[in-house]
């Protein structure tokens, strides 16, 4: 479309400004990770790798990282199974209440996190504690899986709709039974969408704070470790390093997921969770 040169320049300036707004804080935290001083005044006083070393050898950080990895892996695994089952049901079958499924899957992430967190917390305390199951890694995984299902579901449904059913029909016509068709036709067609969804679910779980604070009990995931240590001034240099680490660890899966699905015509996988 035609735009006056002045309008174009204005749009460019606006774009640059917004991008700067998005990235400057991330750059600032990266600079602080190399700060030799213990205090947070600006300007920082040079460059050092000392805090990376300390963070690496910090038992609290290591435990929290390990907990986060286990929680994210567990939640992603559960979400992969539940999300793809629901996606196959919705994309390949007609049944009463089909439209409700998408709504139900989206709900845990559309409602404010504090509501989801509190609801799960109340249930765990009322229902699970009589059986001797306290808050811990298990409840964190249950909570994270609940809101991770939507990412897998959205990716899988989009892929199934796009690939259509003709290949599956051809497979049955050639004598394959349901399992063979699933293993050799449907699953291979879904794989990259599931990997992309899985990466996003992992990133989503790895970063989550609000639901986690309600379900973790005494377990510390990496974000919870950061939250607790923010109030301890002598830990802040290590918090800076961990922050950079967390940003990098969550951006890489998102980038990969985007690359995996960007080839298709029907939109990127990593659009906001509600965006179908």
């Amino acid at each position, binding site marked *: 479309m035609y735009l006056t040169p002045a309008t174009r320049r204005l749009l460019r300036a606006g774009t640059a400004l917004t991008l700067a707004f998005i990235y400057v804080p991330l750059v600032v935290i990266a600079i602080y990770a190399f700060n030799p001083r213990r205090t*947070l005044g600006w300007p920082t006083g040079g460059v050092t790798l000392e805090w990376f070393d300390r963070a690496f050898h910090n038992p609290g950080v290591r435990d929290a990282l390990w907990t986060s990895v286990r929680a994210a892996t567990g939640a992603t695994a559960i979400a992969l199974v539940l999300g793809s*089952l629901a996606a196959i*049901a919705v994309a390949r079958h007609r049944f009463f209440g089909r439209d409700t499924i998408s709504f139900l899957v989206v709900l845990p992430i559309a409602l404010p996190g504090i509501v989801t967190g*509190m609801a*799960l917390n109340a249930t765990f305390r009322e229902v699970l504690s009589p059986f001797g199951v306290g808050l811990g890694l298990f409840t964190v995984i249950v909570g994270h899986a609940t809101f991770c299902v939507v990412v897998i579901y959205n990716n899988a449904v989009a892929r199934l709709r796009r690939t259509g059913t003709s290949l599956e029909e051809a497979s049955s016509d050639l004598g394959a039974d349901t399992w063979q068709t699933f293993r050799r036709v449907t699953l291979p067609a879904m794989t990259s969408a599931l990997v992309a969804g899985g990466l996003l679910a992992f990133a989503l779980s790895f*970063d989550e704070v609000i639901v986690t604070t309600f379900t973790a009990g005494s377990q510390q995931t990496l974000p919870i470790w950061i939250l607790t240590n923010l109030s301890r001034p002598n830990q802040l240099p290590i918090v800076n390093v961990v922050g950079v680490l967390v*940003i990098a660890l969550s951006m890489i899966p998102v980038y990969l997921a985007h690359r995996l699905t960007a080839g298709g015509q029907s939109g990127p996988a990593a659009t906001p969770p*509600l965006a179908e």
Partner: protein
Amino acid sequence: MTAVAEPSAREPAGRRLAGFLWRRPRLQVGLLLAGPLGWLVIAYLGSLAVLFVAAFWRLDPFSGEVVKEYGIQNFQTLVENDVYRRIVVRTVLIAAAVTVTDVLLAFPIAFYMAKVASRRTRALLVVAVLMPLWSSYLVKVYAWRIILQENGILNWALDPLGISGPGFGDVATWLVFSYLWLPYMILPLYAGLERIPDSLLDASGDLGGRPGHTFRRVILPMALPAMLAGSIFTFSLTLGDYITPQLVSSTQFIGNVVYANVGVANNLPLAAAFATVPVVIMVVYLLVARRLGAFESL
């Protein structure tokens, strides 16, 4: 075909089951949905129901124990108490301010991505906006804490001009929320603007509409559903947050009160009652947004 070479021992059983299921599509759907629905309905909707019921319990003021008798005293407290009313109003006002700010910041970049940038630049910009959307929420808030603090980079940059930054408080909360949810506004808005056919904009120009006119009469009305779709995020996320206000201000938001009542005060019934406030606001908001066509832009 390799399928023939499968071990034949368990194939008949598998094939029989496959045939059995093939003839019963309803059972197939049932089996597919049993897991996901079981999980979401029992673990999630069940939990929401527990929460809703808990809102009608009360706390014994002497023993500090939850009494499971039903009454509306928690809601009475919320309506009658001045402090709670002010907190609700403050939260909603900040959520609205954040939404407006994000629309203003998102529009130029979304329009540039949708209508001006080359394919390559557009793909790059989409990734550039997506990656921070998914990257650690907590670290981003913390970064702003460092930037806004007394001897931080903002005051250092503003000092030569003889002014100082906002410090911690409501302004900081507004700024940080706007920062956090900005990508959630850019992406739906970009998708919405991309759907406007170029020919419509050209037609408006050909018919004598000046750029400002085209913007007001063609682009804005057509982008409105997308803006509303984005505002669902900016609104809902602000209403449910308690960590940002805690880190960059000392004022209370709905989330803080809920969190304090679950944790410190151990008053689950009151917390549950207060948590219904953002849910009700969001449900009303979603209904209005649906009427205005925002759901097609989600």
